[in-house]
């Protein structure tokens, strides 16, 4: 019996979720932070979506959020012209870094010693987190607001995206190494360290470039405008979501569309694979985050697979020879007896 994807909806935000990030894998599992226009970024347990805490302090929409590798620190970028660094264990605010305009993006180095920020003032800033009072180093060059800035090549280089360009900078010399131009607005960027791959989305395209040379590797076209895409850690799949409220999953090697899911009630703004690749999270205009299984039907986190042969009454065993049973009746049988407490909105492949 084929299994159908049951997304886990994480509620709590009251306005659109515009950014999300996973930590690395820590001895306590991995964690997820979500940035929301309600100004209250939240920390959740990555594999279950359980809420852990809310970072309180920003006075405007939070546009970007990130966690350091071991999820001990969080950083957020907000419309109140500040970026903040937080203790992700206690929820306390550690630092407020004043900027001259809306801050859109934040990223920690691998050792958590430096924070990269970027925003509407078109400047990249590098803060030494061990010397918060010191002035940050600034890199100028962008001619429109910076949407995303990321450390790459073991923090020796910086990748930044504004509306129409993606630029590569050398950290030591603070100069531009290379740039890519687009005639459509760049909506998102993801950096995959293993393999030095850069995932860029613009229009309906999902493009993969070398993070070292910026040379194009391949690109796919989706059925609708895509706002964010993420490549699986093992580079077997990629997921993407955008303006048609749907999530698409593609085979990275062949470009074949494997699955697609409806479920969100608004455009999808961000989507990311978990560090172990077992699930991916999507954030939407509808104010929710949803967790989706990479392999539908696998037992992981809150998803519990029950094989038909070994069910102990948790799933009703469909009787053999039931050609006249409608799918709705089967759903009812399944939902009455299983742990699935979701109302079944049909979420089959379009």
């Amino acid at each position, binding site marked *: *019996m084929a299994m159908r994807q049951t997304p886990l909806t994480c509620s709590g935000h009251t306005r659109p979720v515009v950014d999300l990030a996973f930590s690395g894998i820590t001895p306590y599992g991995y964690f997820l932070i979500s940035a929301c226009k309600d100004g209250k970024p939240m920390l959740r347990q990555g594999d279950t979506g359980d809420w852990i805490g809310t970072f309180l302090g920003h006075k405007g929409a939070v546009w970007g959020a990130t966690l350091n590798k071991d999820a001990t620190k969080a950083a957020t970028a907000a419309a109140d012209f500040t970026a903040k660094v937080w203790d992700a264990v206690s929820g306390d605010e550690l630092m407020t870094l004043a900027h001259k305009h809306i801050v859109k993006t934040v990223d920690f180095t691998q050792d958590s010693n430096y924070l990269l920020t970027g925003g509407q003032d078109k400047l990249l800033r590098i803060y030494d987190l061990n010397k918060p009072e010191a002035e940050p180093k600034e890199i100028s060059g962008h001619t429109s607001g910076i949407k995303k800035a990321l450390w790459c090549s073991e923090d020796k280089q910086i990748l930044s995206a504004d509306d129409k360009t993606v630029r590569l900078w050398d950290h030591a010399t603070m100069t531009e190494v290379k740039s890519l131009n687009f005639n459509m607005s760049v909506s998102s960027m993801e950096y995959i360290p293993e393999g030095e791959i850069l995932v860029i989305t613009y229009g309906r395209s999902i493009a993969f470039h070398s993070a070292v040379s910026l040379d194009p590797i391949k690109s796919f076209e989706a059925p609708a405008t895509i706002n964010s895409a993420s490549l699986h850690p093992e580079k077997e799949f990629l997921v993407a979501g955008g303006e048609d409220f749907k999530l698409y999953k593609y085979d990275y090697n062949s470009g074949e569309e494997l699955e697609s899911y409806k479920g969100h009630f608004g455009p999808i703004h961000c989507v990311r694979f978990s560090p172990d690749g077992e699930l991916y999270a999507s954030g939407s205009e509808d104010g929710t985050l949803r967790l989706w299984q990479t392999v539908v039907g696998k037992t992981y986190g809150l998803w519990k697979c029950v094989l038909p042969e070994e069910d102990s009454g948790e799933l009703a065993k469909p009787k053999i020879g039931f050609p006249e049973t409608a799918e709705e009746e089967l759903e009812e049988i399944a939902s009455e007896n299983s742990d699935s407490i979701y109302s079944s909105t049909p979420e089959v492949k379009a």
Partner: protein
Amino acid sequence: MQTPLTIPVPVLRLPRGPDGLSRGFAPDGRRAPLKPEVPGIQECPIAQESAESQEQRARANLRERYLRSLLAMVGRQVSFTLHEGVHVAAHFGATDLDVANFYVSQLQTPIGVQAEALLRCSDIISYTFKP
């Protein structure tokens, strides 16, 4: 084409949401560090107290003024500016304890007049009324 028969993947439970009372980060959570007792820094405790109590008095004052402004609004026509450039008007009724929701009546919306409604305060950018 007949849709293949499928069973939704069962889940143990839904993800837990915010408790609505605190900001979380439970001290008894798995990652809670042992908080070392910070020795009280007793420099000029009296001066500190005075600055603190001054601030506390100012805050209490502002709070009282705000609560009185809410009382003055009862029964009046109030204009609300919401997100995404939406403007609505209504008769103000009451607010709840945390001022998280405004209970209003005769809410004039772009799609008609709602007899009774609850406006979420997080959706309100500003409101104005004439006393």
